[in-house]
């Protein structure tokens, strides 16, 4: 692997971008939506396959060495993943992915330049490139976000928006709503409960963190930012490995 030079770097970039960008596609299939597995289950599939496939690198001539720093990276990755899932569930997929991508870029850049002293050809041009990249992320997030839920008056639009944000099948959600409406006649929930449920859907429910009130959406964005913070740092221990 070490003899193929720049072509391996390009291959690494292409694999990193295409494979990482598409791994979520199989998880959006209908059968996954129907099962609605626990996020930790999906995380386990990822970890399991990561563990199995990593041994194949031994066939490419890599040494069989395990650094304790891998444990730190694993801890940062898994805890970041949990924060990311929290973000998706409360702030939506598009907002969360956009948030953690921006934070990851900023954090990894800070680590690289401020801590590891990585050199760039020109600081102004690098900052310009970084601004363009972040602008692109924000733009993609903006145009892929569902309409603002607080402005959505139609209940059907509201449920579809939330279904999309959670990666759920909208047909399934409609069926669940019909089922819930049928049960509503029997259960007859009080008005406050219904209002609370609608506030949840709109992200208006207030959650207190360290005494400060946050809406669910704000908490979701904080969760996604934490994922960016942890994800942007999860390869830092590699620099300290033997």
């Amino acid at each position, binding site marked *: 692997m070490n003899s193929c030079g720049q072509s391996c770097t390009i291959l690494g970039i292409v694999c*990193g971008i295409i494979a990482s960008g598409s791994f979520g596609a199989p998880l959006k299939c209908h059968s996954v939506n129907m099962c609605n597995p626990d996020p930790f*289950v999906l995380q386990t*599939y990822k970890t399991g396959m990561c563990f199995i496939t990593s041994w194949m690198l031994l066939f490419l001539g890599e040494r069989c060495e395990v*650094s304790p720093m*891998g444990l730190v990276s694993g801890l940062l990755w898994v805890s970041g993943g949990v924060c990311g899932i929290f973000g998706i569930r409360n702030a939506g997929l598009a907002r969360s992915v956009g948030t953690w991508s921006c934070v990851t870029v900023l954090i990894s850049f800070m680590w690289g330049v401020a801590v590891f002293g990585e050199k760039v050809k020109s600081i102004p041009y690098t900052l310009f490139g970084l601004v363009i990249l972040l602008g692109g992320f924000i733009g993609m997030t903006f145009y892929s976000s569902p309409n603002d839920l607080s402005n959505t008056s139609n209940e059907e639009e509201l449920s579809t928006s939330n279904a999309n944000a959670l990666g759920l099948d909208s047909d399934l959600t409609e069926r669940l709503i019909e089922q819930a409406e049928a049960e509503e006649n029997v259960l007859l929930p009080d008005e406050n409960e219904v209002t609370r449920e609608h506030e949840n859907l709109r992200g208006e429910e207030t959650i207190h963190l360290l005494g400060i009130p946050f809406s669910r959406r704000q908490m979701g964005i904080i969760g996604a930012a934490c994922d960016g913070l942890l994800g942007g740092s999860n390869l830092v221990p*590699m620099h300290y490995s033997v």
Partner: protein
Amino acid sequence: MGNHLLIDEMTDSDLNFYLHSDKGLNYVLSFAVGAAIVTLTGWILLFLKHSYHTKSFRSGYDLLPSMYFDKIGHLGVFSGVLWSIGNIGQIYTVSVLGESIGMSIVQSQMVVSGILGIAWFREIRGFQNVSGWIISALFTLGGIFILSHEHKI
């Protein structure tokens, strides 16, 4: 002796590449073992939590979330393989290009997931949204090009 001669003949750029790329790929195994230990610990803690609340190991085991091997096993494995390939690419890229440039470039995976979202899942609809997204993606690719060019070995 042969190796010493080979290293002596290398330029600084080649030597840097040789040292860092080697460290990166070796780290894939450390990362995988670390992630497996952390995930396994998570399952054990979940099992102990359920067992504590139900006062029974059997009930604690029954309450663990199902893996749905028969229904989504193949999709989970496929997704995991894709992620693992991406992870190897990411670790390799970061080890060669550095934390600042390498990680930033790999984050453009958002372009790929967006293209899948538009073309396959039809998540982004309407001319304005799609064209706005494409222009933003071009900005992202431009940013990657500039950052790649600015990398100094």
